[in-house]
Each structure stands twice: as C-alpha cells, then as structure tokens.
C-alpha cells in the first residue's frame, strides 16, 4: 500500500503554482503586445543586423511559397508583398499564440502519456501477458490522469480557438471575408468547432469508460474467491473491444487535435506516428514509476527482469517511432510535392535544432544506450534513457504544434517551461493520489503468480 506523502503533495503544488505563475506572466506580457510594439521590435531587430537579415530573406521566401501554394494561416497571406503592417500583424499574432501553444503542447504531452499507458494496459490484458500483472496498479494509476488531462486539452483547444487552430476563425470559411480560405472552407465539413467538440467528447468518453470498467473489474477480481475469474474474463473482453475503438479514435484524435493546426497539410500515417510517440512515452513513464516505487521497497516482487522487459519495450518502440518518423519525412522529402513539403520546409528552416535534435534523443540515444541487455537491468541507466526519451517526445509534440502557430518566433522559455511544470505537478499529484487508493499488487489476477516468478 502506498501512502501519498506530504512531501510529494508539496512538491506538486509548488510545481503547479510556479508553473502557473510563469505561464501567467508570459501570457499577460505577450497579450499586451500590439502591432505598434511589434513594429518597434522589428525595427530594432533589423538595426541589430543578424536576425533582421534572416527575417528579410525568410519573408521573401515565404512570399514565393505563398504565391505558388497559398500555404499557412490567414495573416501570413501577403507577408512577402506588403512588408510593413501586414508583417507586423502577423508577428503580433505569433507572439499572442505562443503562450496558448505552449500550454497546449504541455497539456497534450501529459495527456498522451496516460493514453499511451491505457493502450499498453489493454494490450497486456488482450495478449494475456504473464509478466506484467505486477505492474497493473501502476498502469491504472497513470491512466487516472486521462479523463481530467483530456478534458483540459479539449478546454484549451476550445478557449484558444484560432490562436492554435486557424480553421476556428469564422472568417476563413466566409466567402465575403478577406481572410476566406478555399481549402479550409472545403474541409469545413470535418473541421468545424461543433464537430470538433462532439468528436472529442466521444473519444474522451470512450477512453474513460474503458478505464472506469477496467479498473472496476481489476479491483473486483482481487476480492473474488479463489478460482473465480469472471472479472478477469470481462477485463479481457473489454480490452479487446477497447483496442479496436482506440485505434480508430486515436487516429482521428491526432487529425483533430494535432494535424489540423496545419489545415492545408495532410499525411496518412500521422495517426500511427502520434500513436508511436504516446506509446513509447507511456511505457517510459511506467518504467520510471516502477523503478521509483521499487526503490522505495513498495514493489518487492518486481525484479530486474520486469525492468528489463519495460526497457526492451522502450527500445523497440523508440525504433518503431523512428521508423514512422522517417517514413513520413522521407516519402514527403523524396517526392517533394509543394503542398506537402512546406510542412518540413518550415520545420527544417526554423526548427533545425529541435527537429533533428529530437531524432537524436528519440532514436540514437535509446538505440545505443538500451541495446546491451545488461544495461536494460540497471535502474539508473533506464532512468537516464527514460528522461531523454520523455524530453525527446515533448520536443516531438512541440515540433508538431509550434511551427503552425508561432512560426520562427519560437523559444523554450517562460511559457513553455511554466506549462510543463504546471502539468507535471498536476500529473504527479493525480497519479500518486490514484496510486495511494488501492494495494499495489493486483493479487486476484490469474497471471499474477506467473508474473511474480517472471525471469528472463
């Protein structure tokens, strides 16, 4: 049995408050930026050389791009031609978007961890895995964050509106407006606010329903008399059904919640790519939590073979993520079709370090660190790899959202770090609260004996 310590409560509250203050100040200061401020700022940047120069060339470049492909959001439209007001307004929008995007990226990141864990948990039941039942309570605790986390993501999306999702701007689908965008209007059958909210509620409802019943049956199985595995059978059935529901809704969720920030762009394997990202982050968090709880002596039956298996999953799914990342990148790079390739052009030009840095963190680092099977059994090695993997997948989400909303005005500063701290605190608080509610071993599970004797 785990008891939520006061220290943990205090740490998470400090994280939440500190994060909220950091994010709040940056929100406050950026939302008072007006076009006039931006003009002075741009003039200053230009007089300092350096940044100003790159800007001028980038603008010229954007101009060309727009002439041929009419890409990106409304304010972007004529940036190349009228340098003055339009550009200043465009930059002002980017500055206003930044705190919203920073909040959204962090909220999505922590939500996706618990969604990834939920999928992993369901797979363990559906596959009747013999090694993992000892870790079921840890997984159940992490998925406790899913319902609040996903609702927060939805709330931020709706509140931020066109600060994140340009298609939420009603002018874009209004043929009378100067901001009318034919491509976005063409997609308005799917991309409209009502549909977005209804779909999101269906996704969140389905996932939470599964989570609720899975937890209920798992706890009921503990109380069941010896030999009565009716609840386990129910868990098995709903896990199989959930996995079907999940793979459809996860895909649609990634179109809605992530891909639609670039409403002119589309990619078919995007859903799986986001899935790989959430799956590996989820498994990493299971491993980190397990190592932490084991070090506290709370999971005595967990041995280093369990850690080894989790590390193998971290290793394998990291490579799976890279495979999807590269498949998406290489297919688009190779054929170089203008309407698709702008997605990577903006990322490579403005996000070179995060874009390629994340490949190093999510692929090369785990590849070399976790290849050796002895290293997979050393807790601090797994923790080190896990931290890099988590940071890498934060950057992955960052790279998906930011280029569409703040463009080259990105930085990992106050709003980003504040938002991470805020949600990290919330995540820790809720997950460890859920952990403290029940015994840490799913003792009624028919596979738990096998799991206790698991060795590799």
């Amino acid at each position, binding site marked *: 049995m785990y008891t939520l310590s006061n220290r943990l409560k205090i740490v998470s509250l400090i994280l939440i408050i500190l994060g909220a203050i950091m994010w709040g100040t940056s929100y406050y200061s950026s939302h008072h930026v007006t076009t006039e401020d931006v003009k002075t700022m741009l003039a200053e940047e230009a007089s300092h050389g350096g940044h100003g120069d790159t800007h001028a060339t980038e603008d010229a470049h954007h101009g060309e791009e727009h002439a041929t492909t009419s890409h990106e959001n409304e304010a972007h439209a004529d940036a190349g031609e009228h340098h003055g007001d339009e550009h200043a307004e465009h930059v002002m929008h980017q500055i206003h978007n930044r705190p919203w995007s920073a909040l959204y990226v962090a909220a999505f990141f922590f939500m996706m961890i618990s969604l990834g864990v939920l999928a992993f948990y369901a797979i363990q039941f559906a596959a009747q895995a013999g090694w993992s039942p000892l870790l079921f309570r840890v997984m159940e605790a992490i998925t406790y964050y899913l319902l609040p986390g996903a609702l927060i993501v939805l709330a931020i999306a709706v509140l931020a509106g066109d600060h994140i999702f340009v298609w939420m701007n009603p002018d874009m689908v209004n043929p009378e407006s100067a901001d009318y965008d034919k491509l976005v209007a063409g997609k308005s059958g799917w991309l409209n606010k009502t549909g977005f909210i209804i779909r999101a509620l269906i996704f969140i409802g389905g996932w939470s329903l599964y989570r609720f019943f899975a937890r209920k049956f798992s706890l009921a199985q503990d109380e069941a008399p010896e030999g009565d595995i009716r609840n386990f059978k129910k868990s098995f059935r709903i896990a199989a059904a959930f996995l079907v529901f999940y793979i459809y809704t996860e895909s649609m969720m990634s179109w809605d919640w992530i891909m639609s920030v670039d409403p002119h762009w589309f990619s078919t394997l995007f859903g799986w790519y986001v899935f790989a990202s959430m799956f590996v982050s989820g498994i990493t968090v299971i491993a980190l939590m397990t190592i932490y709880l084991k070090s506290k002596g709370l999971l005595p039956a967990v041995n280093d073979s369990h850690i080894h298996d989790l590390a193998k999953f971290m290793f394998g799914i990291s490579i799976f993520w890279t495979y999807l990342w*590269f498949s998406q*990148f*290489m297919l688009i790079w*190779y054929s*170089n079709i203008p309407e698709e390739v702008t997605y990577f052009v903006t990322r490579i030009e403005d996000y070179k370090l995060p874009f390629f840095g994340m490949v190093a963190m999510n692929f090369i680092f785990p590849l070399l660190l976790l*290849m050796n*099977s002895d290293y997979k059994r050393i807790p601090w090695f797994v923790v080190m790899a896990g931290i890099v993997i988590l940071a890498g997948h934060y950057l992955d989400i960052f790279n998906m959202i930011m280029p569409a909303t703040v463009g080259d005005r990105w930085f990992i500063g106050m709003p980003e770090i504040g938002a991470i701290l805020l949600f990290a605190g919330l995540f820790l608080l809720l997950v460890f609260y859920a952990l403290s509610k029940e015994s840490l071993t799913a003792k009624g599970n028919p596979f738990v004996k096998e799991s206790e004797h698991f060795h590799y």
Partner: protein
Amino acid sequence: MEASKVIHAIYNDDDVLMHAVKEVRAAKHHIEEVYTPFPVHGLDKAMGLAPTRLAICAFLYGCVGITVATLMMNFIMIEDWPQDIGGKPSFSYLENLPAFVPIMFELTVFFAAHLMVITFYLRSKMWPFKQAENPDPRTTDDHFLMEIPVQGNEQDLHNLLVKTGAVEINVVDKAH
C-alpha cells in the same frame, strides 16, 4: 596419442539432468560435454559456461555494414559521378541522405546477420560434410548424455552418477 577414459552418463529427463549437472559440479568433477536433443533452459548457467559474445560480434559487423554502405554510396553517387537524377541534390552526402537510408539500413542488417551466422558456424565448427560428433544417436531423440573424463577414482564417480539418476553409465576409451 594417449588413450583416456571418459564416462558417459545417460539420462532420460532434462530436470534429472539439471540436478545431476549441479551435483557433479558440486562434487568438483569437470564436465567435458553435455549432449541434449533440445535446448535445456538454464543448462549453460548450471554448467558454468561463459556467456556468448556473439551479440557483440553482430554489433561490430553491423557497424562494418553501415560503413560499407556509406562509403559505397558516397563514392558512387556524390564523388564519382554526381549526376542530377530527378532533381535530387547530389552536392554532398548529407543533402541526399534520406534516399540512402534504406540501403544503409539493409546493409547494416545484412552484414550483422550473415557475418554473425558465419561466425557461429566457425566457432561451433559446423559445415557441410562435417563428421557428426554425437557419441550416442539416442541423444538426438530423447536421451541426455553427460560426458565426464575419468581421473583416478572411477568407482566413486560411478556411484555419484548412479545416485543422480543416470539410467545408463558407460566407460568409454576415447582417443585424443
């Protein structure tokens, strides 16, 4: 060549064999070889065999593979004849890297896999037309055989092996 004697103790169950291996080792006898019809989980640990280094070899062979692929394509596509093929940038290796990755990956796997298999064959001395070395054909079907060299007290060893549940014990002269 001096002829030396070995004892062949035959078992018909892998659990019995495992116990026998542990007891024989505990009695400080050297086990020359164990012949089994299938892999017995944990037998190598019980016999105290050193872990294999085949995986390390495979990693190094993989490194060779990726080097070969890189040097080859860099020479052919970039240095020797940097043609414009469908607008692909062949100014430097890095610029055209994504197009080379599938080949780099495949050659890494190819080298790692094949060279590791060949290393395995060489180290375990397996090749076509090689003379089979099993001392008793039943060990390929349903019997397990432990081979222990005799040094001095043959009767003691015999008693020990009987105690461990051997179904058959033969003393064999083995030409070295």
